[in-house]
């Protein structure tokens, strides 16, 4: 436990030192979200609407999406792919660390750091748009929301780690990986709420676990989720199943590892 705590601290300091990139990526997301808010505003001003959403619901959806993007969605696979491809992964084989837990710790400290930064941005934004933000009516919603964020964060990490260790099997994983991530975020509801999708598409997206990353937590916050409990259980089961698959996949991957460049 002690060693992971050290990993956590070192990475936290690293994040603190290179806060510039984090800040810029938050600003970039903020820019995109602002454009989308203008888009929805233009649509609602012209008397049209999207599904059952009020303009306030949509604005809240995208402010939460901005925060979830930084707090929940994981981007560690870039580094994992580099390590495996360039052969620096070899260093781990002699270290008394589990590769999965190691990256979990790094992801955790990174997400907490980025989360703190985005929380400030999100609060400022909510404050400016306070008249257009839908706040939950019950206190229990916030607790449920927090739990959904944690489950979403675990799943997001597991999916991203899975994409990362694909590099054991595929040489040119980077371009492919970008596509996977983009598709995954789309099916998570990061670009559009899933209940605006056409019915068949919606059925597919609902059956997949990606909705727990973005759509599910936001629906809970907006108090639109009909069965939060069932969602928690399903998400929890996915976390466990993926954990087992990843442990197994990592073992197989290490056996295939070729230590390129060494």
């Amino acid at each position, binding site marked *: 436990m002690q060693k992971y705590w050290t990993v956590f601290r070192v990475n936290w300091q690293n994040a603190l030192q290179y806060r510039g990139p984090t800040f810029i990526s938050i600003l970039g997301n903020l820019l*995109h979200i602002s454009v*989308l808010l*203008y*888009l929805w505003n233009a649509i609602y001003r012209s008397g*049209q609407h*999207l*599904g059952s959403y009020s303009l306030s619901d949509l604005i809240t959806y995208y402010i939460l999406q901005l925060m979830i993007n930084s707090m929940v969605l994981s981007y560690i696979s870039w580094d994992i792919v580099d390590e495996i491809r360039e052969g620096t992964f070899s260093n781990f084989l002699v270290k008394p660390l589990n590769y999965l837990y190691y990256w979990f710790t790094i992801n955790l400290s990174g997400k907490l750091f980025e989360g703190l930064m985005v929380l400030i941005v999100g609060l400022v934004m909510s404050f400016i748009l306070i008249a257009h933000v839908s706040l939950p009516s019950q206190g229990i919603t916030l607790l449920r929301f927090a739990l959904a964020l944690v489950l979403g964060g675990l799943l997001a990490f597991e999916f991203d780690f899975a994409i990362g260790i694909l590099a054991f099997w595929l040489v040119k994983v980077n371009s492919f990986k970008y596509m996977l991530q983009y598709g995954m975020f*789309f099916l998570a509801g990061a670009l559009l709420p899933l209940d605006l999708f056409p019915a068949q598409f919606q059925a597919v997206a609902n059956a997949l676990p990606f909705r727990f990353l973005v759509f599910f937590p936001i629906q809970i916050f907006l108090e639109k989720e009909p069965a939060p409990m069932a969602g928690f259980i399903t998400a929890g089961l996915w976390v466990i199943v993926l954990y087992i698959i990843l442990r197994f996949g990592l073992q197989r991957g290490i056996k295939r590892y070729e230590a390129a460049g060494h």
Partner: protein
Amino acid sequence: MKPPVTEAYATSLSGRWARYLRLYRSFLMHNLKNEMIYRANFAIAVGMDIVFMGVNVVFFAIVYGNVETIGGWTFHQTLILVGSVGVVRELAYLTFRQGFLQLGDYVRTGNFDVMLTAPMATFVHLAFRHVSLTESLGEGLMGLFLVGYGFAHLDAASWISVPLYLLMLFNSLVIYYAFSLTVNSMVFWLVKSQELNTVVYYFMNTARYPREIYHGLGKAFFTFIVPSSLIATTPASILAGRAEGNLVGLSIGVAVVLLCLGLSVWNWSLHYYSSASS
């Protein structure tokens, strides 16, 4: 009595253009040969671009499943808009984008010295050195397809608008270049400069939404500070038959001012290059 100086200058100017064109050609051929080594990679990149743009189209398809128009734009008009972004992206890779992506490495390693001493303007050399046909080809092809598809489904499509459309695409390319140049001028002060191009990426990422959605401060911001609302909307408006003279004039004005600004900032920033490890 003709002033010979002017004439000599004129030939040297046209001579310079011809030389730059020759250099462009050889850079392009050289890079193309390099790219052709990794053919499988190229196929994956094209496929990925198509998926990437496909998701953008799906986004608008879903929104248009709920609404009739966005800021007055119909679905088919919006396809021209989304497609134009893809075309501008490919044109950018064909002229300058990849060079800016490499700039950080050049400055950090000190290899930028070579750029400064080459008998060619630095802002052209940097742009041409890494021109790539294939890097964004998928987006270009998909973009052309979307523009064509949208154009074919318009009620008031007119072929007369095509030349002006092409001209305004070029104008958008100038805006994109000028914005990249201005942002990248900061490279000489930063150690980790990758983020500068992240900024440029986000800039282009907001170009595919119609300009009509903005109002007030937002409109000014996305016109003069981050001029992404002009990139696709101006050319697409022309082809979609919804152009106003004002918008064309505004876009050209912004392009000219931004280019002058970018070049001045760039040339001034060059003085702060400290030439690492040499």
